[in-house]
């Protein structure tokens, strides 16, 4: 193979990868609206908050974050959502580790962590955020609840 052709192949490959990276960067952390979302089964979910099992949702907005042990941005995401919870009494942050909960991974079709589901007070899924949420995404999501 000539050196010209090899360089063209390399540049083509790099262009493709950079395009993938740029698209990922733009898409990750943005919210996808869920029409007719299902209700989250809290009992099955088994979320724990302050050492207590979560049996009902008490705020207008709940950010339900799914994490695994093998997750680079789960920690920073949890920190960000906790800060929102502290700043806004209408917001609750729940985190569930799904490393050993393949049932939940399959049920909620989780392909990456963190994945954050935005729930209303009744536990109905309103939107879904894949990856580290962008700050403005979260502000918009809370705004959608007309508080």
């Amino acid at each position, binding site marked *: 193979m000539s*050196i010209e052709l090899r360089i063209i192949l390399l540049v083509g*490959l790099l262009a493709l990868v950079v395009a*993938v*990276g740029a698209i990922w960067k733009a898409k990750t952390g943005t919210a996808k609206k869920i029409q007719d979302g299902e209700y989250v089964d809290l009992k099955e979910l088994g979320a724990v908050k302050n050492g207590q099992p979560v049996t009902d949702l008490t705020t207008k907005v709940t950010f339900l974050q799914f994490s695994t042990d093998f997750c*680079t941005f789960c920690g920073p995401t949890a920190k960000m959502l906790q800060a929102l919870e502290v700043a806004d009494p209408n917001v609750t942050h729940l985190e569930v580790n799904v490393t050993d909960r393949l049932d939940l991974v399959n049920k909620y079709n989780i392909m990456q962590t963190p994945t954050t589901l935005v729930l209303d007070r009744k536990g109905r899924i309103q939107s879904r955020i894949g990856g580290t949420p962008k700050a403005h995404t979260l502000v918009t999501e809370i705004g959608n609840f007309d508080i």
Partner: protein
Amino acid sequence: MATQIDPRGPRFGAAIINVLSIIIFVIALDPATEGLAFNLLVIAVASFAIGTFFGNTKHPFGWLFRKFVKPRLSAPKELEDSRPPQFAQGVGLFVSLIGVVLHLAGVTYGVAIAAGALIGASTLQAYFAYCLGCQMYLGLKRIGVIRSA
């Protein structure tokens, strides 16, 4: 308990792998230099093996990062769990080993195919902070490739 590491360490390592895999890719496509490309791929295999079994902190790239790069950078904004990048090293090991096997099986451009895949993953990791290997964890688990630790 998992250790916390500077997330820029694995990205520095990925940048080195990125340059190495670009070299491998270009020379692997010429039959005259394919043997050299294969030897370089074996070095990549060794690098991934160290990363997989001993982790980033004990890896030579990790040492280079702490010794020469980190002192020139500002303090990290946040630390990351050492396990995801270590898992990703295992994915890199798997991919580079496939290249070795393809080459030994006599597949034309087997080394180049593996190098191409490594270029993709290391570019995303080094320049976009997007860890493809980490991302694959749940997907691999869902299709049953990996079981619970």
